[in-house]
């Protein structure tokens, strides 16, 4: 990285702060008592978080979001990696068609499947269940496509050497391909996790029970059930909002560095 002009650096920092000021202020606000907020005094408290987590069930929403996003990520990335491996290494009857069908999902707007998926899950009794939240989000054509490109760049000689030693295809995938493709798999996993964590319309449609709401649905409810402008307890709402966005922001900041390092170091020699 090139050295920096301190004046420019200061200006850049200022611009970033101004740009993010609504979010930063909302986090500041979440630590204020509501009376302090309305009177303009400064009085810090963790009370809003205690209220959101205790009385308004955000502990449960947080758990639900972790379960749903975690399951979607783990299962989704496994399915995508397996399919990517087959598409990258085998040519089999129908492989072109199946790959085209996978890539075409990138063009297909998800709203076309909203009503049918609701009907399907209602029919098998999976509305208002973790399975109902997880299953429709599992298939990820983009991840499969991306990982296939990545795996094609791994020399086939590595597979063949493993086969010589008597490894099965599953073992080759697990012991040879996955370790080398780890940076790509991690970044795709992160992408799936963030997308699912922020998902709103499907959890909104698929759940009607408070104890199954994800953070996004719970937050939208908490905000919308407030009786009207002026009466909203903004510090409480901002604490709930912070609970829903901070894990992703923190995770992104932490993992980004790891990802960049992984991509540069894990490159195949």
């Amino acid at each position: 990285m090139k050295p920096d002009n301190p004046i420019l650096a200061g200006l850049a920092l200022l611009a970033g702060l101004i740009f993010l000021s609504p979010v930063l202020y909302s986090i500041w606000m979440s630590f204020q008592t509501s009376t302090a907020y309305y009177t303009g005094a400064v009085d810090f408290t963790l009370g809003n978080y205690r209220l959101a987590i205790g009385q308004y069930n955000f502990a449960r929403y947080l758990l639900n979001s972790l379960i749903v996003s975690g399951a979607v990520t783990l299962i989704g990335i496994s399915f995508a990696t397996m399919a990517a491996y087959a598409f990258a290494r085998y040519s089999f009857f129908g492989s072109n068609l199946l790959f085209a069908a996978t890539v075409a999902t990138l063009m297909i707007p998800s709203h076309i499947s909203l009503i049918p998926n609701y009907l399907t899950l209602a029919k098998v009794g999976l509305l208002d269940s973790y399975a109902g939240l997880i299953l429709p989000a599992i298939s990820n054509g983009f991840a499969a496509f991306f990982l296939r490109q990545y795996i094609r760049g791994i020399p086939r000689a590595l597979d063949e050497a493993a086969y010589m030693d008597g490894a099965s295809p599953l073992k080759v995938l697990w012991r040879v391909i996955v370790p080398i493709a780890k940076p790509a798999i991690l970044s795709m996993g992160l992408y799936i996790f963030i997308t699912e964590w922020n998902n709103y319309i499907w959890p909104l449609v698929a759940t009607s029970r408070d104890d199954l709401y994800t953070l996004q649905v719970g937050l939208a409810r908490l905000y919308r059930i407030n009786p009207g402008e002026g009466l909203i307890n903004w510090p409480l709402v901002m604490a709930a909002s912070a609970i829903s966005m901070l894990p992703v922001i923190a995770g992104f900041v932490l993992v980004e560095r790891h990802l960049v390092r992984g991509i540069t170091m894990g490159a195949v020699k």
Partner: protein
Amino acid sequence: MPRKLTPYLFVLPLISFIAVFTYIPIVTSIDLSFRQWDFMTADKPFVGFENYRILFNSREFWNSVRVTVIFAFVSVPIRLMLALLIASALTRETFSRRILRGALFLPSVTSTVSIAVVFSWVFSTDYGMANGLLSLFGVEKIRWMQRPDLALGVLIFINTWKQLGYDIVIYIAGLQAIPQELYDAAAVDGGKRRHVFRRVTIPLVMPTTYFLLVISVIEAFQVFTLVSVMTEGGPAGATDLLVNLLYRIGFTFFDIGQGSALAVLLFILLIALAVIKSRVLGRKVHYEA
């Protein structure tokens, strides 16, 4: 395990989930769009194009189309212009530019519901940040979200704020792909910065612009969360984007046939845009000799 089956076993989980939750639903939606059904009754009588006819004759539908088109074609050009200007200022890697890039990118990975809630406060009448800032200049309190002429503009502003960082990151990648010799040549010819920007940067970054243009329009036609949390389509239908109408017809009125008809129309439109994207990009990307 017979060798021939191996690849099929590897693709089976992904493909079966894609089939059940993506491809079969398309067929189901088309079928349901020709039927009349409200979840309650056992039979779903075939009604031909009746659902489409009702939709095409309703004021709500055309209002939604109008609002969505305005949303897309106002917000996307603003975003792209801003993004290109900022991206060209941030192309070289320095510490402060990386920080700024990170700050600009952050909203695009942040939850839309949280952003909607935060900006509901920003644009609230009595204690909001927007009116607070304007009051410094002596401007009277504005009821942003209650005024039909302003509410859509506010949503466009928020969407721009949220998506800008993504556009910038893509533009930076596009700008870095422009060969440095072209800039050197322009410098030798004594080109002014503004001139170089117009004659070299803008034309050469065109493939990226096309790409962002089409995907942003596609995405604008699918906006739902901001509307659902902030306005529910109001005031007076001023922010009733198409997916919000779809949600209302399907999951508030439980008119499955008509909801499916709207979903099918949206599907056709977005697929057409996606095809245009691959056609246009297929031809335009090869500018480097």
